[in-house]
């Protein structure tokens, strides 16, 4: 983790919320820019990231460009400071890494099946009907991943702008999260 963080960078969770490893160097940037520049995930494997991005983009189009992969990876890397919505619904921060990795591995496995499509796997996840799924309940993961994708796509000033509604901040976040 880089040293010499500013107060605001510390408040945002330091490395978990804005620092991304890109081409061997730490950059303080948005998740979307980190993805664009080819960030190196700290917690998820590249295979897990690829599955996550594919599923999220089907659930919430635009979430790939908004940085869903970097967002989830950075939050899982933040440990007890994770801001993922999962903590509200029975997945405490100390269990989130295992939860997401387990679900993403199961999804990756499903995506390798002959004739599998991302859309088909997503639909089956919603109904808990993915053949051979080994991991957290797929419909629950579907709900949480969709919520994460909504966070990055529509939960920011840019997201509000895309919906043509005013953000009206009292204190504007210097970073999306």
């Amino acid at each position, binding site marked *: 983790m880089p040293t010499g963080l500013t107060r605001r960078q510390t408040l945002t969770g330091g490395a978990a919320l804005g620092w991304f490893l890109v081409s061997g160097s730490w950059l303080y940037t948005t998740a979307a820019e980190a993805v664009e520049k080819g960030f190196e995930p700290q917690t998820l494997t590249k295979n897990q990231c690829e599955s996550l991005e594919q599923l999220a983009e089907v659930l919430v189009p635009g979430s790939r460009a908004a940085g869903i992969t970097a967002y989830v990876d950075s939050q899982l890397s933040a440990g007890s400071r994770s801001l993922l919505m999962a903590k509200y619904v029975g997945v405490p921060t100390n269990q989130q890494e295992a939860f997401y990795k387990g679900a993403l591995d199961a999804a990756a496995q499903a995506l390798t099946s002959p004739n599998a499509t991302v859309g088909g796997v997503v639909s089956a996840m919603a109904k808990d009907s993915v053949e051979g799924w080994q991991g957290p309940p797929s419909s629950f993961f579907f709900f949480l991943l969709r919520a994460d994708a909504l966070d990055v796509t529509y939960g920011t000033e840019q997201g509000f702008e895309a*919906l043509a509604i005013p953000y009206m901040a009292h204190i504007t*976040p210097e970073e999306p999260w």
Partner: protein
Amino acid sequence: MSGKHVDTLIVGAGAAGLLLGAKLANSGRSVTILEAGPKRELSDLISSQIWARRLKWSGANVEEGGNHPVGHAFNAGSGTGGSALHHYGVWLRLHEGDFRVASDHGVGLDWPFNYDTLQPHYDQIQREVGICGDEDAEIWRPKGAPYPMPPMPLFAQARVLQRGFDKTGRRTAPLPLAINSVPYEGRAPCQFDGWCDAGCPIGALANPLVTWLPRAEAAGVTIIHNAPALRVLRDPNKASRIRGVECVVNGQRQLLTAGEIIIAAFTVQSTRILLNSTSDGLAAPGNRYDQLGRYLTSHPAATIYGLFDDETLPHQGVSGGQLISHDDYDTKHHGKAFGSSQWLIAHAIKPHDLLGYGTGRPDVIGSDLKPWITRAARHLGNMTLVTEDIAQKDNRITLSSNTDELGVPLASTVHNLDPRTIALWEKRMGQGQEIFRAAGATDVWQGPRVAMHIMGGTVMGRDEQHSVTDPVGRVHDTDNLYVSGPSLFPSSGAVNPTFTLSAIASMQVEHLSK
């Protein structure tokens, strides 16, 4: 290692703890408050639902079970202000019948006093904190002083939903809120931007950072942050006297001693601290009759959503809502259903996060999502049902066999709804959908049943065999140990608890100052 002895040591810097600290220090006591979470300032209240998650509980995990888990991670807070830092400012009084559900209906527990006991404290706190509303329009409102501020203006969403109540013969009134509709006591008025859940940095919403904290600091209260309390310790020479609180300050275990100790760490953690306080073969304080942790309650709630041809602009207003309906509140028997209920109507709402409209429709994905969510952003209406929970002995908080990083057992909760409560919830949700259709909704759906607010566990009562504290919150088998906050509630009613817990704290100040 021991800290300086003080007159009053309070555990928890939330709505109850800071109120007690400010008022007791003003009466001449030396007061220290231990707060498990970090120091919070108004500048930390960033307008973002993602940032807002920092304000929620971040301490030791709470294990949850039952058919209606209490949702501790969402309902609880940490740091200065506690859960009141992200509460929505819906300040309602319990109704007179809420205080005697066992006597009148044979369910749950009675309170050890009636509404008249609490009314002067409701009135006093209302004056000190500031509440806006229209007491004449609230035809069901218990007696009390008029609101010191006029009601909030109604925005488009409220006017559309009001139509549904009018057409179905139901009544509404402006929602009473501890939010400034006009400048009050040096605090700014609301700007109606719906960021209440992320904390209100302009001071319009009466969070403890702008109500009790300044008064506590002016009166010389010491607040120690990042200092979790582990347990209370009895005096070795007199078991009924509590000597102090074992806590962790700057990474070191310390014993802080005081003349009187008040545990105000919100429902689950207050109970956990007491349960962890067994010593020398003695039961934990208040637990000689196995009452500690019992009668855990939480309001079963859910939101009705609908899309309208009308433009509702649901980003306008405040998170708590704009209107209220308490029709039928005082009729608790409904065939197989039991309890009071209320509608909180026309919340300001965001597209994402747990309560967001986008999150509430997981069936809308892919290319359907953008047009749907864009329409919802301007044409959605929503309202929340809050239902009474029946206090049950076996709904309880216990200690887990798992421990936190300090070696303290985690809290474990079990909360199941009585079938009569579920029947009431289902009946009311059906009525809510009817109201939305009458208002002209073209598409109506409802969210899942969720736990709103957490109460009980250290309930007050008249005798030690059926409660943990006496009617002023003193733990039965002790001389100087008190509990404050919603854990004292013997029954839940169906209204938001912050006003009532504040009135009880005011009553406790009166008792302790005698």
